């Protein structure tokens, strides 16, 4: 059986951290792919989610998208897009797949955030003569910020775990060591890479959860101050 000592040796060997397929480079690739996809998904999904929540139109669409998206395997989606768009455009296809994976949770978060604002507050903002844009900017977005952060947290988890599969379609990322380790029966590389993936995903999840908690607390604080 594979021992913890071997894992430690592999992880502390500088050679495994440098070079094109070193952990440092793969880590940066993994994080870049994840964050770029999350940013694009946010730019698309937040305005749509806010608009749907604000207008109350298209609510069934949000529910349908979020329940259908759970049943679609992210792995198959990525493979299918790379295949259909061509292997030479794989980078683009993978980002497109990741954006598609990240949109439903962010959309649901933005929509639910607006929806959960008490009707008194929303009507109050309107009664004060705010335009729709002002209502969104000064009331809707600040009050739904923690729900949007929660949506990003779920999206982050799904995107990070799908990027692990990117080496299968010829891209980099931390999954490289897992796939190569499996093929070459190099269990030190396999487990070492898995350990770094675990670290990345749990740290990211904690950070998003912290941000969500902070935004939540800011709301309750400002309520008691008044």
């Amino acid at each position: 059986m594979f021992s913890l000592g071997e894992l430690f040796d592999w992880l502390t060997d500088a050679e495994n951290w440098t070079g094109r397929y070193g952990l440092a480079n793969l880590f940066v690739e993994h994080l870049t792919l994840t964050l770029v996809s999350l940013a694009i998904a946010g730019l698309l999904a937040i305005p749509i989610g806010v608009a749907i929540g604000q207008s109350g139109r298209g609510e069934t669409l949000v529910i349908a998208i979020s329940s259908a998206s759970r049943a679609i395997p992210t792995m198959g989606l990525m493979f299918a897009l790379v295949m259909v768009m061509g292997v030479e455009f794989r980078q683009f296809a993978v980002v497109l797949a990741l954006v598609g994976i990240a949109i439903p949770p962010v959309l649901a978060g933005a929509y639910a955030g607006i929806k959960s604002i008490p009707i008194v507050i929303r009507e109050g903002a309107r009664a004060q003569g705010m335009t729709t844009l002002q209502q969104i900017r000064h009331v809707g977005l600040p009050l739904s910020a923690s729900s949007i952060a929660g949506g990003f947290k779920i999206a982050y988890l799904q995107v990070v775990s799908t990027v692990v599969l990117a080496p299968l379609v010829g891209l980099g990322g931390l999954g490289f060591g897992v796939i190569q380790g499996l093929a070459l029966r190099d269990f030190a590389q396999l487990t070492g890479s898995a350990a770094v993936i675990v670290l990345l995903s749990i740290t990211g999840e904690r950070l998003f959860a912290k941000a969500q908690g902070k935004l939540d607390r800011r709301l309750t604080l400002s309520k008691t101050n008044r």
Partner: protein
Amino acid sequence: MEWAAKNFDFVLELSVTHLLISLVPLVLGSVLAFALVRLTPLKLAGTIGTTFSAIYAIPSLAVFVALPAVIGTSYLGPTNVVIALSIYVAAAMFFSIRDAFSQVSKPTVFIARAQGLSPLQLFVHVELPLAIPGLIAGLRVAAASTVSMASIGAIVGVRNLGYLFLDGFQRKIPEEILTGLFAIFIIGIALDLGLWALGKALTPWTRRSAQRV
């Protein structure tokens, strides 16, 4: 559709494996989560919750390949996948089981207790039936994600529908990948409908009251 028709038996065989490798973790994970919710003291519930949400954050492929180092199973084959998926189901179901039971209204429980029901009777005849809508809702979410996550097991050598993605990509047959996507989607929908029907069948009173209104 030509590819799917020509390889129908093969796809069917993979589908059966896929269904089994999703159903077994669903049952095992739910039982584990149930035991944890009911049997652990309240003080520990917070710790278990944090642990589970951390586990839930780990990408499945990483869990599949990290398990052998932790518990000494073989790197390839279905054992790791079943164990890992069970843990994911338990992590998701822990929260929905806890919420489903805490949503049972307290007065109902007090009245039942005052009528002289034993703890077991109270559980079987009052708490469990009233928690069923919440339990089914949790199971539906867990089932959908388990069915789609199970496909990643193909990378560690499990012959399920995920194999169609790997094989179709290597042999450049887009139809094969699409067949896999479609079959997994169908299994997910079928399980979802099955659970929905089960929920309806187990809570006949919700239907009756709806008719009266």
